Each structure stands twice: as C-alpha cells, then as structure tokens.
C-alpha cells in the first residue's frame, strides 16, 4: 500500500514545481519572480499553478531588467524575504553578474556578518534544436569562482526537488542550474518535502576501473556511458557532485584514488571550468604518489553552433565519454568506441521540438 510520502515517479520539471509549491506553503516569505513566470507557458511548466494558488504578490513577472531585478531580489532577501528569481536561460544571467558577484556574494562578509541574502536564482541551460551560441551556455564555473555564492546542478528529479528545497531554506545566495533536456526525465521522488544538502556528492554506479564525474545532465550521459563500458568489460564509477559549491571533493578523490583514473565531464568549457577545478583539487588532495591519470571533457573549445551536424561535434555524448574512459582505463589496448546507434542522447530519441 502506498503512503502519501512514498516516492513516486515524477518528472524533473514537476519536481521543481512541487518543491517551490511546498516551500511557498510552508513559508510565506518565499516568492517567485522573473520574466514570464506567470504566463500560460510558466517556464516550461516549472511554475505552473503557482500564480493561481499564491496570487500575484508572490508570483509575478518583471520588466526586462535583469540587472535591477537581481538587485531587487537581493534587497528583498536582505530585508527578510526569500526570493526565487527565475531566468529561462543561464545566458541571461550575465546581466545579473554585477549584483550577484558584487552584492549578493559579498553582503555577508563585507557588512561584517550582519546581512543575509537568502536568494535562489534559477536558470536553465538550453541545448539542441538550434539553441545556439546565446541560449546554451553553462556558466556555473563563473559563479563557482566567487566566495559567498553556492551553486547547485541537479541531474535528476529527486535531486531537483531536494536541492530546490535546500536552496530555498539556505540563508545564502544559491545559483540553481537546471538543464532543459532533463525537464522531461523521471525518477522516484518522495512526495513530502526533503532536502538534498549542499556539499554531498552521490556515487551513481560503482566500479573499480575508472571514476567518471558528470556535471548536470552530463551525469546522465555518464551513466549511459557506464552501461556501454560495462558491456566492454570496464567498470566505471560515476559520481554526480549535485552541488558544485560547496563541492564534495572528498568523495571524488576517494574514488579516484581507488580507480586511479579520473574523467570529469562538464556541461561547460574545460578552460577554467568546473572540470579543471575538480581535476586540480583531486590531484592536490591525493598527491603525486596516488598516480592518478586524469582527463577533462566538456563543450568543445568553440562557440555552440546551431546546425545539428555541427552541434554533434560540440557536446560530449555517451559514446565520446565511454571512448575517453576506455582510453584512461585501458591505455595499453587499442582504442574502442561503442557503436554510434547506441550512443544517442535521450532527447534525440524522444524529442520532437521546438522548445
């Protein structure tokens, strides 16, 4: 018999919505605002029904003024409210950088610990169907760089809900990075509120041959890669950091120390990126005697194109991830790659477009 709290399959998008709804029920200081949060499309459904339930004082759209709206969110948070500011693409957060980096991140410290900024900034990474140069960027490493900010990047519905509730309850500014392609994916999610707390990674698959860290939706692609690798006799340990800041480097380092191979697959560029940070932090923590072979993977070092044939060259996929992991794990053997018809991404099978 099922209990009301029993986990049930839920889509990522509905998990986000449910988390926000439950927190708005619990705490009337929580409000949601941002461009188009209250229209009929409701940010791909992630804010659906909130306006009807909570009213326009707590769910409202904004002028196209990302800079000032971020400042307003920060001020409201300092004054005791708990804003959730929503952007439908992460690229638009570049207009929020001044307020996020110069005020939100600094407030607690610069004002001697007397000010809190309990702010959640939601944004979505876009991918495919011609999202292109300005609708596809994963800019998390820019935010990871700055003390005072936290960064969450949940890769499944369970973590989307748990991270969102943790982020809303956190007294610090949290950059909450979602991925458009994950919105339709389902996992078991408890119905009652719960948190996935900052600073704890999850080991998704166990293995002794290679450690693969996958960030955001790359965790899903890495899990698929691990299935393909298993068929070829390589056991991969896939780790999802879930929170990028604070980052659970200990779990990753312990795994890498055991497997002696570390592949970090990011949803962003390699240079100065999260993958570079993770590799460096692991190597520093385990020391040279651990003898770990490392590799980064991420966006190709170019701008995101729109043509699907070019785009295929831009992103890591289960095939390229498996191939790289094989090279790390089996350096003495000939290269191996899974057959291309088995390396499609989930959306390539299901997705019909447009966004």
């Amino acid at each position, binding site marked *: 018999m099922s209990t009301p709290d029993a986990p049930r399959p839920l889509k990522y998008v509905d998990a986000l919505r449910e988390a926000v709804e439950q927190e708005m029920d619990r705490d009337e200081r929580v409000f949601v605002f941002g461009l188009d949060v209250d229209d009929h499309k409701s940010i791909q459904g992630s804010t659906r029904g909130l306006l009807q339930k909570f009213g326009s004082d707590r769910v409202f759209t904004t*002028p196209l003024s990302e800079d000032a709206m971020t400042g307003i969110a920060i001020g409201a948070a*300092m004054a005791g409210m708990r804003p959730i500011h929503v952007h439908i693409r992460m690229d638009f957060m570049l207009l929020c950088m001044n307020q996020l980096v*110069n005020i939100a991140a600094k407030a607690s410290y610069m004002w*001697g610990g007397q*000010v809190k900024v*309990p702010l959640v900034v939601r944004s979505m990474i876009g991918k495919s169907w011609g999202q292109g140069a300005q609708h596809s960027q994963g800019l998390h490493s820019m935010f990871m760089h700055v003390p005072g900010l936290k960064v969450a990047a949940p890769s499944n519905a369970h973590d989307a809900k748990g991270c969102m509730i943790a982020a809303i309850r956190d007294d610090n500014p949290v950059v909450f990075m979602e991925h458009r392609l994950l919105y339709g994916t389902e996992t078991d999610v408890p119905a009652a509120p719960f948190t996935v707390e900052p600073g704890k990674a999850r080991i998704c698959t166990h293995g002794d041959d290679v450690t693969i860290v996958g960030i955001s939706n790359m965790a899903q692609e890495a899990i698929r890669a691990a299935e393909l690798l298993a068929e070829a006799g390589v056991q991969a340990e896939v780790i999802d950091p879930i929170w990028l800041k604070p980052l659970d480097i200990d779990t990753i380092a312990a795994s890498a120390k055991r497997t002696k191979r570390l592949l970090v697959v990011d949803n962003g560029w390699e240079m100065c990126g999260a993958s570079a940070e993770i590799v460096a932090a692991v190597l520093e923590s385990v020391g040279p005697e651990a003898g770990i072979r490392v590799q980064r993977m991420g966006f190709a070092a170019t701008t995101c194109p729109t043509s699907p044939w070019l785009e295929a060259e831009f992103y890591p996929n289960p095939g390229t991830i498996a191939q790289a992991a094989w090279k790390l794990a089996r350096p003495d053997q000939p290269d191996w790659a899974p057959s291309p018809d088995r390396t499609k991404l989930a959306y390539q099978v299901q997705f019909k477009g447009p966004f």
Partner: protein
Amino acid sequence: MTEPNLSPADVSRLYRSLKRIRRFEEVTAEIYPSDKIKSPVHLAIGQEQVSVAVCDVLGAGDWVGGSYRSHAMYLAKGGSMPAMMAEMYGKDTGCCRGKGGSMHVIDVSAGVMGSSAVVATQIPVAAGYALAAKRAHAGHVVAVFFGDGASEEGCFYETLNFAALHALPILFICENNGYAIHEPIAKRRAKPDEICSVAESLGVPAHRVDDGDVFAIRRIAEDVVRRMRKGGGPALIEAKVYRWREHVGPNEDYDQGYRFEDEVVPWKRTDQVERLAAMVDDAARARIDSEIETEIADAVRFAEESPIPAAKEVFSDVYA
C-alpha cells in the same frame, strides 16, 4: 533660500545633525595623513544637508541606502559614530568588523543598509527593501542616495520603472554635485538638466532643488514621504550640491585643473552649516558644538583603543 517654517527646536536639531557630520568629516580629514585610517574616504563636506534633510523625516523602521560617500547618510540616520570610526581604522569593533571600511558602512539597528562602492548598485537593492516594506504593510519607507553619475547606470532606469510599476515606497535622492570623479556632467549627458524628466517619464514624480536649501529639501521629502507611507508610490528628489573636497581623500583639489575654486564660492557663501548656526542662539549653539566635539573625540579614542581583528576572521562570514 526659503524660510524654515519650523520650530526653533527643529532648526537646532537640523543644525546639530549638519554640524556633527561636518565636524566628523573634518576630523577624519585631519587624521587621514597620519595613516591611522586604513580606508579610502569619500567626504561629503559641502553636501551634508541632503542626508540631514531627508533623514530628518524618516524614523525607526525606515531604511536608507547609499554609496561609498555615505558618512553623512549614516550619521544622519542614527548610525553609530564610534563603530564607523573604528571601521575606518580597520578595527574589530568597526561597523563591519574591519571588512568594509569607509565605503561599506552599515548599522542595521539604525536602519542603515550596507552601502556599496560599485556605483548605483544600491539603487535596486534599496528597491528590494522597499518591496519588502510594501508587503509588510507597516507604512515604512526606504530612501536611497546616489550621485549624478549613478543616474547614468542602466539600473537607475530599470529601478525607477519597477518602483513606479509596483508603487514602491522608495524615495530616490540624486545628490547632483556635477561631477563623477573628475568628469563634469556636461561631458556625460546630452541633457544634464533632465534627470528629473527621466524619472517623470517613467511615472516617478520628481522634484529639483537647485540651491542646496536644507529646508526646501526637507519640505519636499516630508511631503513625498507622507504620501509614500499611505501607498502613494515612489518619488525622486534631485538636489544640486557641490563637493568641496577631492573625490576621494582628505584634500581640496582646485589646483588640479579639472575644476576651479570660483565654482565653490557661491556654495560656501550659502553653506547650510553656517546658515543654520546663525539661526540657533549662541548659548545653545555653544552647547551643541561642545557636545559634538566630545562625541567625536570619544569616537576617535574608541577607534584608537579598539583591538585589531584576529587573523582567523579573514575567513569568517563568507557565508551566513
């Protein structure tokens, strides 16, 4: 200049506030060359009356926010003088515990939100406080102080629009001293006299005071704040003023070639500190002046005698 139309007690209160800020900053400038103050100082000498006038109509529960040039606002709103002096000295007892300095003063208990040194950033942040004030329905208001240069940042326009749209209880105060660092406004705006019309065009009623008259500024502030407390929405005051000292630092800089001393002459002639001093009777003024000197001396002693922060504090408060 207009008549005060205020009681003698009101005038002497305004005088005390003006003189206290003037003397605090003069003493700051005197100490500065000793290198005991470990922070760049942006003095408001010559433009104190704007903060004094506006804060005089605010009360407990109201907030003020400002820029790196916020000593006047902080003191006028009731911020702790010893804590600000100690902050400039980099001491553990400072209002930011040695992590903010002169540019980031804060006194939460007095309703002074932290001030910010990235130009114009506190304009939207203050509007966020105003949004919270509106939702709380307690009739509180927010006043945000910024310069003419800040009015050129995009977030000024963005915030005016949002504040008008949501009828936020926020008073925008542009202290137009005609310069952004060394650049005169005529080199930065095609229409230097139209700051008010930017606000008006977005639905924020605006008022300009050209002569630095503390009573005129106070009267307008009192009127717009009264309406604001009843849900009347935002307003803007542009107060023309003149900065007597250099942009940052303790000195005068009329020898630097970007401006000349004749510009300050009319402003010194109408100095509001002297003007109000003449309105307060001699005995009362002498008492106020001596109380101010004692208070400042105490604040300086407090700063000098306060402990320095422990090294481990460099890592505290990064997160709440």
